[in-house]
């Protein structure tokens, strides 16, 4: 049982929780994630990145978007309540090197959450960080203050222009690739399509670009292979070999179709959950 110490709503459907998890907090590094499960029997196991942590307090922070049945249920838990199971830290930590030139960190939507500890780690290593944050509109931007405080330069983009530049994140990214001071590396985390296009943007400039993949997972220990992706002709397990890979080598289209493996079933399940919720709300059945 892992206790929820703090809960905060970041946007209409994005939540942040601070969890009491001393073992995980002590060992975790940037780029790692946890797998959690809400009960002992019928819940599913879902991966969530560790967005932050405090080794002294023994806490970790998770940020998630309430989109499916499990994240919806998670979002309904309150401070003081507990999550039945949290396993971690999982995955290979981000490779952080001291760079002479700037590091570009791109975060799209909820992808800013996993990006946060990576920016922290780059700053801790003494790197100059330029962060690009993007979202559909200004209400969907998360961790803006934190990112502004951490980054040497912060560029905000929204699709509708309600904040910052009215542009896709790839636009400023391309400009930075063409700037006089060539960047040392790029990290891009967000929806698969965004990561794919970031990788395409940096490819002509041969700018090393790491992406963080969020595939379907079960165990998170390398036992099932459900998380596998094709990276440069080779099969890799995201939960142990990743979650970060060279964006220029990832087969995004294969990954995206694998991520939709259960689309119809999940929709059905969420529908059923919603129906149940409606019934309950209407004070109907049972």
């Amino acid at each position: 049982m892992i206790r929820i110490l703090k809960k905060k709503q970041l946007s209409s459907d994005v939540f942040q929780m601070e969890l009491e998890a001393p073992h995980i907090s002590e060992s975790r590094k940037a780029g790692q994630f946890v797998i959690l499960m809400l009960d002992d029997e019928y819940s599913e196991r879902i991966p969530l990145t560790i967005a932050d942590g405090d080794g002294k307090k023994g806490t970790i922070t998770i940020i998630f978007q309430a989109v499916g049945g499990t994240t919806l249920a998670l979002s309904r838990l309150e401070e003081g309540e507990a999550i039945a199971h949290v396993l971690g830290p999982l995955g290979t930590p981000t490779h952080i090197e001291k760079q002479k030139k700037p590091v570009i960190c791109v975060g799209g939507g909820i992808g800013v959450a996993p990006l946060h500890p990576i920016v922290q780690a780059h700053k801790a290593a003494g790197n100059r960080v330029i962060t690009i944050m993007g979202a559909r509109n200004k209400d969907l931007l998360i961790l803006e203050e934190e990112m502004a405080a951490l980054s040497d330069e912060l560029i905000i983009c929204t699709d509708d222009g309600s904040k910052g530049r009215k542009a896709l994140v790839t636009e400023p990214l391309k400009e930075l690739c063409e700037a006089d001071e060539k960047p040392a590396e790029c990290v891009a985390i967000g929806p698969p399509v965004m990561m794919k296009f970031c990788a395409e943007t940096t490819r002509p400039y041969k700018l090393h670009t790491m992406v963080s993949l969020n595939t379907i997972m079960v165990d998170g220990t390398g036992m099932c292979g459900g998380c596998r992706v094709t990276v440069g002709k080779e099969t890799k397990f995201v939960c142990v070999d990743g979650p970060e890979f060279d964006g220029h080598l990832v087969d995004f289209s294969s990954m995206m179709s694998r991520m939709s493996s259960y689309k119809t079933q999940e929709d059905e399940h969420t529908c059923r959950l919603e129906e149940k919720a409606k019934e309950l709300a209407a004070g109907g059945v049972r």
Partner: protein
Amino acid sequence: MTCGYKDPGTLDLEALAVRENLNLPQGLNQIKKKDRAAIPQQEMPSQEAGIRGGNMTEVALGYSENQVIVEASRCLECANAPCVKGCPVSIDIPGFIGAAAKGEFDEALDIIKESSMLPAICGRVCPQEKQCMETCTLGKIRKDPMESVAIGRIERFLADRGAEKGDSTVDKAPSTGKKVAIVGSGPSGLTTAADLARLGHEVTVFEAFHKAGGVTVYGIPEFRLPKSIVQREVDNLEAMGVQFVYDFLVGRTRTVKELMEKDGYHAVYVANGAGLPKFMNIPGENLVGVFSANEYLTRANLMKAYDTEKAATPIYKSRKVAVFGGGNVAMDAARTALRLGAEEVHIVYRRTEKEMPARVEEVHHAREEGIIFDLLTNPTAIISDDQGRVAGIECLQYELGEADESGRRRPVAIEGSEFFMDIDTCITALGNSSNPLVTGTTPELDTNKWGNITVNEDGMTSMPGVFAGGDIVQGAATVILAMGDGRTAARGIHEYLNQ
């Protein structure tokens, strides 16, 4: 093999008739060996094939008391007991069977428990026909190991009966003040935990999953090994004071070294299983609809995806399934797919049925349930539809050629025999290699070229105080070997701690 279905009641009545004829239980000695050998083997009562294909509950229902007594009376009580030599943990087989034949069931179970910790599990899943039943004299006389004394079925009866009676409060030695960490709660870890707790050590089991039992809960399906049986063993250990820590991945949450240096464990037993699925490296293996058996079975068993009403974990909806492989894992995956509603399930195997490593009983059950066996067949590519989903497989036909060093005839591809199979789901059940998470984060541990940890005869690794056993040492093997290793290591650890 029997034909025609007989329900448990009929089988019991038939056994009763034989039993009355034998005039037992005054003892076996009165029946001549010749007559004993003539007693027909008792058939295992089971759910009828047509019915069980639609449910997840156990297929084999277990002998009745009459059947056990009759089956045990078939034993010839051989002086040299070749069956014991076939048993990886040397259970005194004629000893417990003799007691069972006399109806002394408690005594019989005690004899088993001297050598085996998990008889209810082993009675169900051991490949008896390759172990005790292979060497049994009766099988030799009848020229078929499947006609030997049904040792495992008797073992299962005794273990289940013992559990129902609620046995297993064991004497515990006074506390030694020594702490032992066990990595993994599969059969190997559970065995070591039991033995060490009994010896008075303080035992903590660290498990990555949210449930204990290892492959016996995430891999082997309910219809072959009910989860409640494994849970019973875990409950017993908890009652003995063994601590279980779930959601703890050694190598990530803590390393082996940290367990010893930071947390003060005096010894560690690494029993983290094999747990790295093999794929075939053929084109199309990362398409939607291709699964390792580990994933498919974990979803279906541990995550209960068969219960589509309650379970949040989805499982792929299949019409025509091909399972690649011929071992227990392949049979389990195929029979699970059938129960989840697939119209057609194929076992695609490169050799013939004779070479299949699966338990004979499982192959038999799979056939009865309507699984199609495509033998001497091997997939060469998985074909995609326009959405990246499996649309079929390309196969080659094989024939058996010359024998290789191991004496098995090597399958060779028949030129020009390519053909296409209409399939929408592929499950690879080609076995497991060793998961590198623990070894990779513990450079002090010596491994062989397959990544298996190497140990000495006491189960100790190259790292002082760290022992290992089960699949991580043996390579994907069997429950009984994992349990045997656990016993050896427990003795080794006890000696090490007493030094």
